[in-house]
């Protein structure tokens, strides 16, 4: 079984084709863009913090408050930028991604030291870590090989994460987790967060529907638990796209019922979960473009 999973995660159809190169490189560019968004957004917020309420990750071992009330987070964002833009554009010293991943971890634990444990940036965190691991452990191999490893690594933890989330619910609450009244309580909770953020809150159509009927609220939670439980199906090429459709539906549902939209997560599901490589390879000009020197040298890879 393990061999079957490994084969499904790390074997790409037509690995040297234009479609595979574009999908892998698009994943790398996507990771860089969101890395920059998060690293810089947090960089300008961290100096406002004063105390650590809840230490996460390495903040359990080092006093991360040295990031507060100064510009260390900004300098850290500069380093993260340098250590990721160089391997992205120059395509050399790709092990720098590993340092960027470490510094990004510090940026995260400094930013989220206030009691909140958000997961919206987890997939981007996994992505930069995977790029670093691929570059360090497969440094004698091609960029394509390193990227395929990173891609498979993320798919593994993506599937594992959703399935463990379902197990967390079943262990902590049991099958009654899907009882619609629980959704009512969470809608009330998110009501306060939105009210606190914008000074006003209006129920949307799905929230009104769920609040009007316990059956509908239960159905919403049942769909969510079902989608999460089968998260591990993304490990298998044959079922990946179907599970990804369910997970995208799950995130749209979370957004509509609880006003929590995991933008980066959802976009990355779309980018990684569908066989874009196969679809691109079907384009009539794909074979000619794959031989284009400029494209391979400057934008993709050889």
């Amino acid at each position, binding site marked *: 079984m*393990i*061999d079957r999973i*490994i084969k499904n*995660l*790390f074997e790409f159809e037509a690995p040297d084709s234009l479609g595979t190169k574009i999908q892998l490189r698009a994943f790398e560019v996507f990771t860089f863009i969101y890395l920059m968004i998060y690293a810089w957004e947090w960089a300008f917020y961290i100096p*406002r*913090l*004063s*105390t650590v*309420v*809840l230490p*996460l*990750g390495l903040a359990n071992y080092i006093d991360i408050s040295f990031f507060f009330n100064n510009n260390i987070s900004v300098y850290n964002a500069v380093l993260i930028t340098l250590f990721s833009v160089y391997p992205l554009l120059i395509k050399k010293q790709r092990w720098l991604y590993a340092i960027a991943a470490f510094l990004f*971890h510090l940026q*995260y*634990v400094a930013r*989220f030291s*206030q*009691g*909140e*444990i*958000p*997961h919206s*940036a*987890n*997939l981007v*965190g*996994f992505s930069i*870590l995977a790029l670093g*691991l691929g570059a360090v*452990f*497969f440094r004698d191999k091609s960029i394509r090989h390193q990227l395929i490893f990173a891609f498979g*690594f993320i798919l*593994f*933890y993506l599937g594992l*994460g*959703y399935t*463990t*989330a379902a*197990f*967390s*619910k079943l*262990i*902590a*609450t049991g099958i009654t*987790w899907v*009882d619609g009244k*629980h959704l*009512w*309580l*969470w809608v009330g*909770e998110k009501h*306060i*967060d939105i*009210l*606190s*953020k*914008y*000074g*006003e809150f209006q129920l949307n159509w799905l929230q009104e529907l769920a609040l009007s009927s316990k059956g509908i609220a239960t159905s919403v939670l049942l769909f969510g638990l079902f989608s999460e439980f089968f998260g591990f199906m993304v490990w298998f090429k044959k079922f990946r796209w179907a599970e990804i459709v369910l997970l995208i539906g799950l995130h749209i549902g979370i957004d509509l019922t609880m006003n929590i939209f995991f933008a980066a997560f959802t976009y990355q599901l779309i980018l990684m979960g569908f066989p874009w490589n196969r679809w691109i390879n079907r384009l009539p000009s794909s074979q000619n473009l794959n031989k284009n020197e400029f494209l391979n040298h400057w934008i993709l890879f050889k």
Partner: protein
Amino acid sequence: MKKEKKLMLIIFLISSILLATHEGEFWPFSIYPMFSQAGNPWSRGLVEDVQDSSRADLWDTKPLHVVEPRTLALKEYGIHEIDFANYISKTKVWDNTKLNGLRSTFQIDNYPGKMWMATRVVGHLTEQDSVVIEAIPMFLFTSDTTIKNPRLFPEELND
């Protein structure tokens, strides 16, 4: 594929140890436990924009709908609403460090004449399956003072 398999097993082992020893969270590794405990009472926070501090019900616990029209939009002041909610709902001991931390988050010194009530909001399910939400005033911040709710902190002197 041998090297990939070996590396994945090692990383899986390391991540499992990290998760087991850090309550399921070692970023970016996580077991994603959010919303796993269904039906439990919750606690969040909001800030009430107080116009009249001599109001008789200033320090009373109120139903949400009373406070809702006077809720301050934290986004307009660059305050992260979830950080604030966690700060006010998870802090157990309100010593001067914690109170000053909240003041510095608000930066109310930059808004003379404003009076902001840091308010804890709690919600729970009743036996009749309805959701009850109540707002508990905690601290009134002005540009030069911090006043604690005398009903919650009766023994302590206010600044």
